[in-house]
């Protein structure tokens, strides 16, 4: 969103006060900060609800953004909503909310309803996307989206749209070859492209030192002749500032920027991961202090921006939103199998015909015997013993 424009009003009113107020040096008004806080807290609340629903057996799988929300809101705030592009990743709940998706949009993805705007229930939760909001559809193979954002930046430059394209991934993913190829191309052509690495120190179980030689992703930027910035990802305003500078560079035609936000992963990799197997209790406890939510809250409280009344209002709105999104998603119907062959191509082809078992009615009965487990199947289905037990056992020794 065009922060500079939005804050111009309030900034003009109290020019002197604003200069000393929190965020004023960044051109952020008190209202901006409250809205940013609302988004951080909303993302957390939606996320926490997902885990509750998972434990209650309502949704089979969760992949979480907890610990990443501060960086996500700070960075996204620097873009212009409805104009710029973001190619997000599976932890980008706060990013998507900040860029225009609603809690209902997020929650229907968890339930894989027909109305899920990301995929109509076709993708696993965490694979968000919305053309309406310029959020590129997430896939599972990591890092591929970097090149899509680079392509969007190329299109923006050729078509002179003034858009910036930003992409996000984890530090483990940044080692994929596509990242090297994309940074090189974007830098050669000075494209309006921004690469955000949300470095939480782990790629599932593999720690930074075994993922990233040199242990800094930002330091790779120099190899492409572009700025590489490291920022405290629990500091919302620092993230905003870094992204704002990158956006300015991009719009000015000065090319890409790489921002590495140091964050913490407050949950397991996903609902199927037991992180105590590879992270010590001490480390997990220490990481709690990097939680951006209380940190940002205290900052705003100390600055007198988040007053008790404001907080109450925000909390009530969030609670209502999360409740509404859950109720809504719970009530939404599943997609009908008759839709399953749609959108392979733009048009239907006669030769791409349905399977012998047809497109719907017939499967209704067939589905009884189909596997009915909620076995989550991510990096996951995995060691989740419960999930495995749910799968109908095939006793081949009986043969």
């Amino acid at each position, binding site marked *: 969103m065009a922060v500079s424009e939005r804050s111009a009003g309030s900034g003009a009113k109290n020019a002197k006060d604003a200069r000393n107020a929190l965020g004023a040096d960044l051109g952020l008004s008190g209202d901006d900060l409250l809205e940013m806080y609302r988004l951080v807290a909303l993302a957390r609340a939606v996320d926490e609800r997902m885990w509750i629903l998972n434990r209650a057996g309502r949704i089979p799988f969760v992949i979480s953004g907890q610990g990443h929300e501060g960086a996500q809101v700070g960075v996204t705030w620097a873009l212009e909503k409805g104009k710029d592009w973001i190619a997000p990743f599976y932890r980008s709940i706060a990013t998507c909310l900040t860029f225009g998706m609603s809690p209902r949009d997020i929650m229907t993805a968890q339930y894989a309803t027909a109305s899920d705007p990301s995929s109509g229930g076709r993708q696993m939760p965490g694979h968000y996307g*919305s053309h309406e909001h310029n959020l590129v559809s997430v896939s599972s193979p990591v890092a591929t989206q970097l090149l899509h*954002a680079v392509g969007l930046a190329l299109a923006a430059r050729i078509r002179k749209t003034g858009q910036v394209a930003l992409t996000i991934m984890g530090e483990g993913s940044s080692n994929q070859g596509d990242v090297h190829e994309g940074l090189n191309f974007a830098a050669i052509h000075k494209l309006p492209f921004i690469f955000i690495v949300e470095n939480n120190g782990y790629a599932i179980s593999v720690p930074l030192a075994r993922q990233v030689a040199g242990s800094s992703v930002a330091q790779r930027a120099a190899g492409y002749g572009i700025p590489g910035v490291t920022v405290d990802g629990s500091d919302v305003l620092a993230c905003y500032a870094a992204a704002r500078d990158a956006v300015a560079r991009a719009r000015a035609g000065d090319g890409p920027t790489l921002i590495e936000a140091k964050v913490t992963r407050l949950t397991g990799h996903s609902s199927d991961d037991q992180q105590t197997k590879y992270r010590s209790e001490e480390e997990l406890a220490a990481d709690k202090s990097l939680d951006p939510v209380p940190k940002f809250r205290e900052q705003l409280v100390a600055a007198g921006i988040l007053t008790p009344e404001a907080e109450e209002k925000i909390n009530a709105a969030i609670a209502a939103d999360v409740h509404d999104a859950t109720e809504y998603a719970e009530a939404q119907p599943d997609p009908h199998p008759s839709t399953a062959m749609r959108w392979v191509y733009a048009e239907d082809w006669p030769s791409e015909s349905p399977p012998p078992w047809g497109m719907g009615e017939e499967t209704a009965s067939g589905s009884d015997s189909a596997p009915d487990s909620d076995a989550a199947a991510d990096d996951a289905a995995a060691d989740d013993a419960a999930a495995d037990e749910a799968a109908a056992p095939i006793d081949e020794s009986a043969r």
Partner: protein
Amino acid sequence: MALKTFIEAIRDGLREEMARDENVIILGEDVGKKGGVFLATDGLWDEFGDDRVIDTPLTESQIIGTSIGAAIGGLRPIAEIQFADFIHPAFNQLVSEAARLRYRSNNGYSAPMVVRAPYGGGVHGALYHSQSVEAFYTHVPGLKVVIPSTPHDAKGLLRSCIRDDDPVLFFEHKKMYRSVRGDVPDGEYTVPLGKAQVTHPGTQVTVIAYGLMAHYALEAADRVADDGISVEVVDLRTLRPLDKETVLDSVRKTGKCLIVYEDNRFGGYGAEVAAIVAEEAFDYLDGPVTRIAGPDVPGVPYNHVLEDWFMVNPEKIEAGIRKLAAY
């Protein structure tokens, strides 16, 4: 009408589509000043400039991935992969991304783009400059695959591909670039995707082929005609979506089917055609569905003796036809 080589027809098609739609861009290795290693884009950089004819770094995954993003952003990218053999580093972007974008987003997104690549052997290109790679991509729902055999079809199909709203792989047999000539109409004609063509009508044996093999099949048909064997040749042109009707109509008429492809036999594209014919024309078959295809070795060898041994040619097809006709 004008007589054009295969590569001229392609170049003309590119130029005319770029002139028609300013969102059409070309990107790839050496496509700019050099005009591509086969000169398919010769002159286009001069005509359309740096922004629309982009020399990329030597990075195929980037070429395809950037094209996907550019397509989302409203361009119509035509990516050139220098040799089909070098498309493999982009496999993930093609299969996981380009092919699935529309489906996975429930039609929220799509990636209208064309990937052009020279394929095929018989030019002393050895293991890595001779490959046929169509089988890897015809297996992938969401991708379209086109292999033209004439200048007319090449230009008309290329136009359709560029205007299509889905990702299309367009493979050009490199041996045909300058050796194949044919009439090309003057106007803005198109050849539709998904339609095969009977290029030689016949009654006794159906031969199904595409690309260079479509020519060799015609030669083979001529050779056996003297001996009274009547061959119907079907040039598939679009491999996916496959024009099943034309294929099945022919085989139901002739009762015999020979499928010809240059790629390794085992698991090649022709296997699917054979499987379809074997299932859907079973009641009409007067002989086994047979295939003449490249031997199952990891690539076309370089030495001419070995290459000759590898390559399917008119004689080998002829032998296959005679055997089947005599069945």
